């Protein structure tokens, strides 16, 4: 009946058979010759704290918690390798062959030497015991060190830490840098020495570790996530959204060997002091792998890689620069405009082709897979390959790496919609005096952005709303550029713009009406949120400029 058998199963089975066969019920065995229950067990028991229990801060775990079940929150600062820990030592006697068992509950133990079996004791044969590794039971064991979160530390204090002993399935759950909530029994560890010292350090036996990270996708998850990027910086919602998208990245495609990059490059532009650098450094901290550098301090060589001659062997070696170090990550380059022209070209290659060439030795680094995030102060530094000309962003590293595992595709059905939208954009670009340029690049950008947005929602298929949001971001990026030139005219309220859009859409007929769904689509693609659209609808209805039918599906101008 038993299928999957490993050594332990075989041992358990054998031992059970031995017990039923050779055991005389009247026979009183030495307790050490009986099978300890740990040896016959395949399950582990853990406690999960009630979800209502609020985790404590490390500094609140005091002497009165000794011996109690506590739940603490913290960041893992150290994790040892997972080592085997003996829970039952099994010995065999070299004289009588009897097995002896020694359950071990403490961190250290004294091995048994003399065989305690009936036979050896009565015969005084002096059987010696040998430790039998395969018959012993080991469990996984790991030691962690957690430290308080910085927000739990009172001003002017050093964060406290605590040692955690994890056993069995609780091992390998957390890595340094992870935020965890640990439940366990809080016990002091006695220190003793030449004389009895009365010092004791603190540690906790874990019964449960959970990494504090939720997969739930909430309603306004996208907004919240974007808002959590550099929360200390007010506003800049669209910039933050753009940065969020950068962290996730689009899907890379390689049809027939041709590589189409999925990484999103962003150039943040703005007046001095609008938190460009702060956003950059925030991203630097947030991205799982990132490299921060400033344009003024780095040459093309430093950014890409340097060829160095080894002084001893005369060998040429490659020294990774910021961009190489940021492979598969984000490279944040501050003060991009202050960089020398020659060096800037090195970065263009990386951003465009995602490769790094080192001309000096005619070798080519295989691939550079990174997004470049740049901050520059003047508009002249605008480069054609940056999708979004805006300024800012960030998110939970964990979520982002999860998101990156998704490979969303654009369904056939959406291609028509995207094509139509692109044609529309081209048409508009031709009429407006816009200095930006709408080309096939823009289309690629929109695709990249929409796949990234789909990744963010953790779905496998790109939906219409992703495309809309991508177009909205592009539109906002363009608007943010135009604002520079048109800021002498009065800024129009979103409601007013929506009104004029609708009027245009309604045409010049006798009965001027327009479908709400159609109108909303148009507005959203122009960079307005559905909420703004609804607000505008209500506002103008109140003014009696238009009427909306009962089902709210059609707007008719009065």
């Amino acid at each position, binding site marked *: 009946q038993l299928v999957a058998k490993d050594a332990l199963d075989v041992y358990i089975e054998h031992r059970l058979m031995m017990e039923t066969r050779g055991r005389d019920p009247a026979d009183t065995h030495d307790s050490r010759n009986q099978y300890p229950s740990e040896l016959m067990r395949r399950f582990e028991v853990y406690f999960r704290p009630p979800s209502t229990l609020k985790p404590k801060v490390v500094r609140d775990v005091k002497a009165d918690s000794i011996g109690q079940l506590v739940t603490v929150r913290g960041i893992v600062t150290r994790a040892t390798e997972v080592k085997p820990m003996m829970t039952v030592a099994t010995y065999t006697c070299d004289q009588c062959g009897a097995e002896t068992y020694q359950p071990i509950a403490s961190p*250290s133990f004294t091995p048994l030497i003399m065989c305690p079996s009936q036979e050896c004791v009565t015969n005084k044969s002096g059987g010696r015991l040998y430790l039998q590794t395969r018959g012993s039971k080991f469990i996984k064991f790991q030691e962690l060190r957690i430290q308080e979160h*910085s927000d739990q530390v009172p001003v002017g204090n050093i964060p406290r830490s605590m040692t955690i002993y994890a056993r069995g399935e609780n091992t390998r759950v957390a890595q340094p840098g992870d935020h965890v909530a640990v439940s366990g029994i809080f016990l002091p560890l006695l220190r003793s020495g030449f004389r009895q010292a009365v010092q004791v350090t603190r540690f906790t036996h874990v019964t449960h570790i959970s990494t504090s990270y939720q997969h739930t996708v909430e309603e306004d998850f996208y907004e919240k996530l974007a808002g959590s990027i550099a929360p200390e910086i007010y506003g800049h919602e669209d910039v933050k959204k753009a940065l969020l998208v950068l962290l996730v990245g689009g899907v890379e495609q390689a049809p027939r060997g041709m590589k189409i990059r999925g990484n999103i490059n962003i150039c943040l532009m703005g007046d001095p002091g609008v938190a460009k650098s702060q956003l950059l450094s925030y991203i630097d901290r947030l991205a799982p792998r990132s490299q921060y550098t400033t344009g003024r301090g780095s040459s093309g060589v430093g950014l890409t890689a340097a060829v160095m001659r080894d002084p001893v062997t005369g060998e040429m070696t490659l020294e990774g620069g910021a961009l190489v170090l940021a492979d598969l990550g984000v490279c944040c380059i501050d003060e991009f405009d202050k960089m020398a022209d020659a060096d800037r070209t090195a970065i263009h290659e990386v951003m465009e082709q995602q490769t790094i060439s080192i001309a000096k030795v005619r070798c080519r680094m295989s691939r550079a897979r990174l997004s470049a995030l740049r901050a520059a102060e003047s508009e002249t530094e605008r480069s054609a390959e940056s999708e979004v000309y805006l300024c800012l962003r960030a998110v939970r590293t964990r979520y982002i790496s999860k998101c990156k595992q998704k490979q969303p595709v654009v369904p056939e059905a959406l291609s028509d919609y995207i094509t139509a939208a692109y044609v529309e954009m081209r048409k508009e670009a031709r009429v407006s005096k816009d200095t930006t340029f709408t080309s096939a690049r823009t289309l690629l950008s929109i695709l990249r952005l929409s796949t990234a947005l789909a990744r963010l929602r953790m779905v496998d298929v790109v939906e219409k709303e992703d495309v809309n949001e991508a177009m909205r971001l592009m539109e906002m990026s363009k608007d943010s550029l135009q604002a520079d030139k048109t800021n002498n005219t009065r800024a129009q309220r979103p409601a007013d713009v929506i009104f004029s859009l609708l009027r245009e859409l309604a045409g010049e007929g006798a009965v001027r009406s327009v479908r709400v769904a159609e109108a909303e689509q148009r507005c959203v693609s122009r960079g307005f949120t559905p909420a703004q659209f609804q607000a505008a609808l209500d506002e103008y209805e109140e003014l009696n400029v238009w009427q909306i039918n009962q089902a709210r599906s059609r707007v008719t101008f009065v």
Partner: protein
Amino acid sequence: MPTVHDWINNPLGIVDGLFAQSNSCPDWEKKVVEYFKEKLKLNDAHTWVPSLNDVPLHYLKPNSLVKFRCMVQDMFDPEFFMGVYEMNDPTSNSKQVKCGKYKDITEGGQVDFNSRSTVTSERQTFYCVPIPGESQWNSFAGTSQARVVPSTSYVPNRHKRSYEEDDEMDTQPQQMKDGAQSSAESHGNIEPKRQETEAPSHDSFPSHCTSSLDLNFPLPGEKGPACLVKVYEDWDSFKLNDMLEVFGILSVDPALSVIADEREASSLLDPTEGMETVEEQRVHSPPASLVPRLHMLYAQPLVHNNPLLPSSNFQRKAHLSSVLGELASIRAELLTYLTHVLLGDSLAAEYLILHLISNVYSRRDVLPLGKFTLNLSGCPHSSPFTEHLYKVIQQLVPSSYRLCMSLHNMNNQRMVPRKDYTANRLVSGTLQLANNTSLFLDETQLEQGQLDATGVRNITALGNLISWQKVDYDFNYHQMEFSCNINVLITSEGRSLLPSDCQVHLWPTLNPPNLEEYLSAVQVAQVPSQLNKYRIYLSVARALNYTISDEITKAVEEDFVEMRKDDPQSMSAEDLHRLLDVARLLSLSHGQNTLSRDGWMKAKQLEALRISQTPQQKCVNGNEP
């Protein structure tokens, strides 16, 4: 008389005595603290207590009361100890309940770990170092004060100490009763052993041990005892980098070092020890002969570390009125002195005084108020001038540090403290300084070259320190902001590359043929009593309170509007801010707690003069606001 000083020589006897009464009086712990507080309050009782800062460790009696003027450099994790434990006495086969507070090691006999009367308590360990950059005159003054102490409180030679021990043994039986007695005996037992081993070990240790054991002083080249201070009460009230005067029981039992050694040797064998790294053990249980343990009975936070001034608030008030009388004359003398030092530039001397008495008195959001970073430009490149200027400042302020901003220093020095997770401690850096330290940045030492990543980080840290009076300590996974209160003075040739609140250009009117000789002569001319007056003056002026009346606020407001009317470019909000700072410091330097109309006008004149003398520079390095 020895009985008078029993609380200094044998504080544990008093603790045990009070503990013995714990049945009748449950809050004996409070009583212990109260007892020592009362004793220290008496007259100048606290000056009788020998100080770890001045007296070499091997002259101090173990388990006696000592004081230590220090800065909290690191805070370790709390540890548990047996507050009360029961012991089996093998000789009489009886059980005894003992107190484990203020001790590192249990005494004699076998501890009964399963006893029901065991109480586990918690205490906090701080790693304390002497206040970084403390000037020589400061510790000297401290010693001279301690010399007033009756010689019985500490004994500077070994012969005399053993005499006193006999003395102490004689008095103990009368002093202590029942339980406490055996503690005295065991105490006596280990004593001779300690004497034999300690003296040579102290001689040989520093030479070979300093290399393996980093005592983690913030500034390079610092000496002095570092100390593990065990805190029993109210440890949340202490902050990192606080200056404290700790009164506590000295514990240098060699057994503590034995534990450390044994653990190192056995760490491979014992699985429990494998979980604490060797580095961690070394840092957290260093040999007691190098890093003594101090069990805190009472600690006084220090507002300043000027020994010429009384440290408690109450006494300072009385002191203040006596100083205020002479204030004007001292200020004039100091101004003349500094003018001589600054080669005859009285304006620079005036600003230097303002700088020396500046103090962050409050923080509004992130903005520190009251800081006054001075950039003294026009200092000659590679000349002994800055070095001598620093010496002069060192003579005037209680603690200071000169940071030569040479490329090598910038690229190699650790300025920002960093958490070392392997050893589980905060590795100190140059910028971990106590409040009111004068930091002298010598930019004239800077030469051309490449700043590497460390250099860039260091420059950023210095900039943050100057602009926000905070240092972001590096905790690897995140940074933590620690606010500080450090007076930064930058000397440079041109305008400094670091931000500053105020730039004064030096215009020498004297041109001595031999600069070095001249500067030394100026310094030598000051008699110590004169210097002491300056020191007191600076510390007093710094601590004065300051208010602006509504009436003056209004006048200033109108004045500002008036000035903007003429030329909006001439007066920005920052200029007003600086002007208010100058006015505040100017008033304080004259001993006035409020701004007067006259003071405001003077500040305006001073600023106008300074601006007219500052060479106009184009924006060159982007550090301009």
